[in-house]
């Protein structure tokens, strides 16, 4: 089932136990919306291995899916046609970075002005994570999402 662009993530087969927090895991996926389902399965498994579960994990996968969908819809893939997704631990949180190789295109410069179908991605990401970071330069757009591992440690109503 795994194409070369979709390698089995290295850490996913290590049989880590609860409490172990492995290092960063990363995949590159073809910039096609038909890849979203497999991306979510990978991200969900990786988040679980990094200690994120339950409601927190579901919300995190939804948020990450928004960032990857944007990279596919609005971004520019790397030369090999892929975009990158990376998860890593950072203290009590998990950080996911979604990266494509193109500049950010502000909504007002898009040719299809936002219809009722669009324009909610960043609102979802912000509501479903503890911190959202967007880094933009002419050669890359990186979205970084931070999520506390467990709902209890959540920043909540801060």
């Amino acid at each position, binding site marked *: 089932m795994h194409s070369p662009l979709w390698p089995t993530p290295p850490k996913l087969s290590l049989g880590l136990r609860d409490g172990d927090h492995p290092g960063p895991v990363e995949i590159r996926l073809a910039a096609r919306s038909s890849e*979203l389902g497999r991306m*979510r399965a990978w991200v969900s498994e990786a988040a679980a291995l990094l200690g994120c579960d339950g*409601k927190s994990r579901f919300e995190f996968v939804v948020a990450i*899916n928004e960032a990857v*969908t944007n990279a596919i819809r609005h971004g520019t893939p790397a030369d090999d046609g892929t975009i990158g997704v990376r998860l890593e631990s950072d203290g009590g949180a998990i950080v996911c970075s979604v990266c494509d190789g193109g500049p950010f295109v502000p909504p007002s410069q898009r040719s299809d002005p936002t219809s009722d179908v669009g324009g909610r991605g960043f609102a979802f990401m912000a509501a*479903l994570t503890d911190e959202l970071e967007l880094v933009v330069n002419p050669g890359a757009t990186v979205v970084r999402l931070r999520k506390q591992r467990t709902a209890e440690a959540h920043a909540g109503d801060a």
Partner: protein
Amino acid sequence: MGYLEVNYQEIDGDVRILRVAGDVDFDAAPQLKRHIMSRVDAGDRQFIVDLSAVEFIDSTAIGVLVGALRRLDANGGSLLVVCDNEDIRGIFETVGLEHVIPLHRSHEDAFAALAHAA
């Protein structure tokens, strides 16, 4: 290659039930949109969209529902969501959309709300 299934059911004359199952993401949202909009174009006005069998939902799918709701609203129609999947309900609540799209736990609640509104 997401899995999506949409079933359509007519109930006592006016109300239409759309049962959605699978992953409603950006890949599948156009399919959901076609299903709903073809029924709206055909003149249906009261919709219950049952998301209980949905395993994943994204902002474009919710955008499709909001778009249909706005269109129906403008013509005196309505659209309610029924969902007993806590993960999916949680998304609606966390992003603050339960105030935009009425969200019910059961068909009974949804029918009661429709009857109340009529």
